[in-house]
């Protein structure tokens, strides 16, 4: 019988001479980290360059209401309602921004306060909120093979779209009018990217945690900014830092018995501080 790629992965990793490699949940979690980290690291470059960090934070927090809608609708898995609500919210924020009625940080701040409160109110009815704390800190070690498969498929689609729109996003960051003069419609590219970001953040949430996911998006890119001199370097360093922090954080969380998402963030923070030191020294 042919071995599935997953079985090959388990065999390869369990041959490593480490204690953690002997556990199936760790091998799966490592696979998930190898999918999620580079994706967040790559998207993070645009988030940092376009100053969208507050937006991605708001999308993460909006998951409270996404979950609540799933509960009201009686869904077994609230993921679909989370994704749907994140997309609706993304379009709403884009619409408010385009209207220019409110400055973008005010608009996002209002929306975030509203969606977090609404979600908490609905989920805490009857004192049942504790059931949902998993989403707050995430549980990377509970990931199932099927979830890793979904994440990998999402990662492939997201990477394709991201690369397709990358150049116009880059120009739009520099000057929307310049992008326009080169026939690159910045508005559409930014909307596609915002939707992509919303879906990726929402899908990664249950494993990483609402409270910390935004750090994984911005820390690797912030670190890469301290090292890179051009776009390719920025991109490459951000993915490398995300992978390094992801793997180191996962293994550290195993030995320290801590929540994986937050441990990964601390690892990324450590790398960021090292890059900052290097920048200050040089």
């Amino acid at each position, binding site marked *: 019988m042919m071995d599935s790629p997953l079985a090959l992965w388990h065999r390869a990793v369990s041959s490593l001479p480490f204690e953690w490699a002997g556990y199936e949940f760790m091998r799966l979690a490592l696979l998930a980290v190898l999918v999620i980290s580079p994706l967040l690291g*790559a998207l993070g*470059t645009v988030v940092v*360059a376009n100053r969208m960090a507050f937006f991605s934070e708001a999308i993460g927090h909006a998951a409270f209401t996404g979950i609540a809608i799933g509960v009201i609708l009686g869904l077994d898995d609230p993921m679909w309602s989370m994704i749907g609500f994140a997309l609706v919210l993304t379009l709403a924020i884009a619409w408010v921004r385009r209207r220019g009625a409110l400055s973008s940080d005010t608009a996002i701040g209002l929306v975030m306060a509203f969606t977090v409160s609404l979600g908490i109110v609905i989920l805490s009815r009857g004192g049942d909120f504790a059931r949902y704390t998993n989403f707050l800190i995430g549980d990377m070690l509970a990931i199932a093979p099927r979830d890793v498969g979904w994440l990998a498929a999402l990662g492939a689609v997201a990477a394709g779209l991201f*690369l*397709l729109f*990358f*150049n*116009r996003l*880059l*120009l739009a*960051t*520099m*000057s*929307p*009018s*310049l992008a*326009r*003069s*080169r*026939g*690159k419609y910045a508005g559409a590219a930014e909307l596609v990217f915002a939707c992509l970001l919303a879906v990726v953040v929402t899908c990664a949430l249950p494993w990483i945690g609402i409270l910390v996911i935004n750090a994984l998006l911005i820390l690797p890119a912030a670190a*890469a*900014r301290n090292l*890179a*001199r*051009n*776009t*390719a*370097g*920025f*991109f490459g360093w951000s993915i490398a830092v995300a992978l390094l922090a992801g793997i180191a954080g996962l293994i550290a969380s195993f030995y320290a018995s801590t929540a994986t998402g937050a441990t990964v963030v601390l690892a990324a923070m450590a790398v960021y501080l090292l890059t900052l030191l290097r920048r200050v020294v040089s």
Partner: protein
Amino acid sequence: MHVPPDDAPAHQGIAPHRCGECCTTMRGVAARRNGVSVLEDIDLHLHCGELTAVIGENGAGKTTLVKCLLGEMPHSGEVHFLDAARRRKDSPVIGYVPQHNSFDKDAPVSVLDLFAASLSARPACLGVSAPVRQAALAGLQRTSAGQLIDRKVGSLSGGELQRVLLGLALTPVPNILVLDEPMSGVDHRGREQFYGLLSKLRREYDLAVLLVSHDLATLARFADRMVFLDRRIVCEGTPSQVLHDPRVREAFSLHSLS
């Protein structure tokens, strides 16, 4: 669709290679922002080989005019371009040099990345191919900026950045070159050099140039035609005609000068 021939240019430029045939026309262009009219009844012809300077006070609609030309701003009226064979083109190649550098000083974007993102379909984050690098270098050499190709955009001086952006706007050589206050924040010598370069390139490539600026004294020497804008075109003509118009002198407090 039949397009009537354009009127003869009001002011005959002196560019040696001027074909004088191609022309960008704005006819009856008007724009509103939040229900308030910001631009009215604009009739403007931009001829190749001719540098047209748009002057006006803050809020006079200069940048709005540029945005209408770039197709970035919804407007009524017509904007069209006729090429040398007097065929109508709906999407002329526009070279655009933006207003001021709002560029992030720390952005890890090199000059080459800017060109790659503009010229190539390959995502700049995956590196730049040798032919694109060649094309970028050729573009930068037009504005004597070849040595800046690997510099970070944020590390350039104001004058260097504008030479890079001008080189980018000329790659490929456009039908119209539009510059929106390209020299704000650049010192006097840098401005002189830049306008001298622009004037030379305009002749060399027979470019139609639209330049928005406050630099009246410098423009007087380099522009072929001048347009004074205050929501509508108040007056236009040679720089000396426009700068002697009482309405212009009033707006720019030129009484004490000359």
